């Protein structure tokens, strides 16, 4: 009897403990509604994979979802991902893409609005920088993606070069106006010429006049560098009938100036991608660079930068038209994240997309210098933590914000990637002096015609018509007379 009582007591205790274990409040870390789910993301570089790794732990702690990230090299990314999508399936749930390719990707993305209603998601769309909200999120009017990287160009300068009294004196004697961070392309080219080949920092080193990325790779570096000039001289991609305008007077003038000033740039500039000129800037070897906003975080990193606290940040130069400077910095091209229409884990992926887009989570990504992701929320720009992240971070973020009203998007129509590759290649051909600027741009225009013909003139014209209206609403129009009168 005693033995039975003992066994019964033990049984009661065990059952009690089991009940307690089942119904007791679980520690916060265990409240993971999608525990056991793994989603697949696809991105185009290791540093993008790294950026996701910054939030992976929080995603798991909050949602119980693991992210497995596949990297497809940038040059093959568009072809490979579209090949998968066009075959009617995709191994990925979360897809990174270049917003300029939205017309090719959009139909493979899951619209977000039904899921916002169903899962009560909050993507904080009101907090997205308006120009990005306008050009990066929608396909055929439907919200399909969230920004991930707010790529734009701003200008950086080394204050040492511009503030040394000796430099100012010499510059004024040569150019008959005061040395200052350039506001126009004329001033930029003068400064590049002036600073090239001597120790403008007071040393006896032979330093360079300015920096740039002119490699004609898939991302179209030389094309991005060219189009800021081109648009400020009144250029536009196509007219309303899809006739390319990339070989007009504005286009030729922009490219001619770039070719003429090539000697003031570092040797190897034709092979430079994004990071080489940034490195020259932070090492104090170039006084001027306009490039991606991510460079600011390297400028402010004392572990590698010799210009911490000595750098200026501002708008990419423009052209003086009728006494007013017209700036046209480029959206270059940014990154978006979307949920694949073919995903079998749409709900979990929607939750992940919402989570990584939250202001605090996305801030972690855009603040980390190694991700080279750039701010895209208004709250990123106003974040007190970001504004104090390094000396003059507030000025850097203000320069980004000041650029937003003037930004020029890519030609966001089907085959955008093809158009850009062809043009970028020809621009670099001219920069390498293998063709004249006019010849190179004429060839590029013919290539653009071929792409349009192949894709269907009517279809392309309809898509471009929408973008033309969108660009007009941003204040960007074709001005054939500007090329002649721009100063």
């Amino acid at each position, binding site marked *: 009897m005693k033995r039975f009582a003992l066994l019964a007591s033990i049984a009661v205790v065990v059952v009690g403990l089991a009940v307690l274990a089942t119904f007791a409040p679980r520690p916060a870390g265990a409240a993971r509604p999608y525990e056991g789910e793994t989603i697949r993301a696809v991105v185009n570089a290791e540093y993008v994979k790294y950026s996701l790794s910054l939030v992976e732990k929080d995603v798991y702690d909050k949602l119980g979802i693991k992210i497995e990230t596949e990297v497809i090299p940038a040059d093959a990314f568009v072809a490979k991902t579209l090949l998968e999508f066009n075959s009617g399936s995709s191994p990925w749930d979360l897809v990174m893409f270049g917003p300029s390719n939205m017309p090719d990707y959009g139909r493979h993305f899951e619209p977000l609005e039904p899921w916002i209603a169903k899962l009560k998601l909050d993507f904080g769309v009101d907090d997205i920088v308006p120009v990005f909200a306008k050009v990066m999120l929608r396909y055929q009017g439907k919200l399909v993606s969230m920004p991930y990287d707010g790529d734009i160009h701003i200008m950086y300068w080394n204050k040492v070069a511009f503030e040394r009294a000796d430099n100012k004196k010499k510059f004024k004697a040569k150019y008959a106006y005061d040395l200052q961070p350039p506001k126009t392309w004329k001033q930029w080219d003068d400064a590049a010429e002036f600073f090239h080949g001597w120790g403008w920092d007071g040393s006896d080193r032979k330093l360079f006049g300015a920096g740039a990325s002119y490699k004609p790779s898939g991302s179209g570096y030389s094309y991005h560098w060219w189009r800021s000039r081109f648009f400020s001289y009144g250029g536009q991609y196509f007219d309303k009938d899809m006739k390319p305008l990339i070989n007009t007077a504005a286009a030729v003038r922009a490219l001619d100036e770039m070719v003429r000033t090539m000697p003031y740039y570092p040797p190897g500039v034709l092979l430079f991608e994004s*990071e080489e000129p940034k490195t020259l800037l932070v090492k104090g070897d170039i006084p001027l660079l306009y490039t991606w906003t991510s460079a600011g975080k390297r400028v402010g990193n004392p572990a590698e930068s010799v210009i911490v606290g000595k750098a200026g940040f501002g708008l990419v130069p423009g052209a003086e038209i009728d006494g007013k400077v017209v700036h046209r910095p480029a959206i270059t091209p940014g990154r978006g994240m979307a949920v694949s229409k073919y995903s079998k884990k749409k709900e979990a992926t929607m939750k992940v997309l919402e989570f990584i887009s939250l202001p605090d989570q996305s801030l972690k990504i855009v603040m980390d210098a190694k991700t080279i992701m750039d701010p895209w929320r208004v709250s990123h720009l106003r974040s007190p933590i970001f504004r104090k992240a390094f000396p003059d971070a507030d000025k850097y973020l203000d320069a980004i914000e000041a650029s937003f009203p003037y930004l020029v998007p890519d030609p966001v129509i089907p085959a955008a990637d093809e158009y850009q590759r062809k043009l970028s290649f020809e621009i670099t051909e001219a920069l390498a002096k293998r063709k004249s600027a006019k010849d190179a741009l004429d060839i590029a225009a013919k290539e653009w015609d071929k792409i349009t013909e192949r894709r269907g003139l009517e279809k392309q014209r309809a898509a471009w018509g929408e973008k033309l209206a969108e660009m007009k609403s941003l204040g960007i129009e074709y001005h054939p007379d500007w090329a002649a009168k721009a100063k």
Partner: protein
Amino acid sequence: MAIAIERPRIAARRVKRYRVHRALGHVLTYLGLFAALVFFLGPFFWIVTTSLKGNEDFFAFPPVWIPAEPSLAHYVALFTRSSGARYFTNSLVISSLSMVAALVVSLPTAYSIARWRFGGGFLSTLLLVLRMLPAIALIIPIYIMYKMLGLTNSYLGLVIIYTVLYIPFAVWLLVGFLRDFPVEIEEAAMIDGCSRLRALVQVVVPIIAPGMAVVALFAFIATWNEFLFAIVLTGIETKTMMVLVTSFTTGGTDMFYGEASASVVLGVLPAFAVAFMLQRYLVKGLALGGTKG
């Protein structure tokens, strides 16, 4: 008399001049070799040292040629954060299997062509024509076919395609070696009771082993370095080392110079190691193939 005295002097002077010229020739040869060595191995040396440097040394001026405190941190990051171990293993498995498959399929094909002119010259020409087709022209149809057969993102799919792609080259090489092999030895083995298969495996193969080593080496290196099919036909489970290298080295190497360099080092080392191991056979094999008129 004077002439008799002069002759040894002239001869000595000539010998001296010859020695000077020879020494000068050696110096110039070694200088040329050294310059070539620096030209070809310099970049690789820089990549190796960069993979062992700390982040602060990448752009240091004056350049840091050899890091004071070499670190394997970038290799660790490559294997942990960038799934380097998975890609490395994939490359190793796919390259090894493709190499073996190419040999297994090519040897009997080459043997039948060499001994019996199987296909009457048409087969060998057809094989060569297959080799002439650029891979880029085949990639879309192959992708569609693979998608329908469920072969994308699988070891089997990649091994099949690499084997098929490599067979023409392997067959042509092996046909040369087999035609050079004296048929009398093979016949003697068969008179002694060997079947043809046994004669091939136990008599012919050991003798043409250097030739097979050449085929194996080229198959391994070609597969290891292949990029186009690897990028299109693979998924996250089967990506190869070359895809990883390229994901670091295109689109801006950005802030990951260390990992990028480590990936390049790991990307070339296995092919280098296999070449080194088979070097002895490689030289013999090339010499053997070289006797073919």
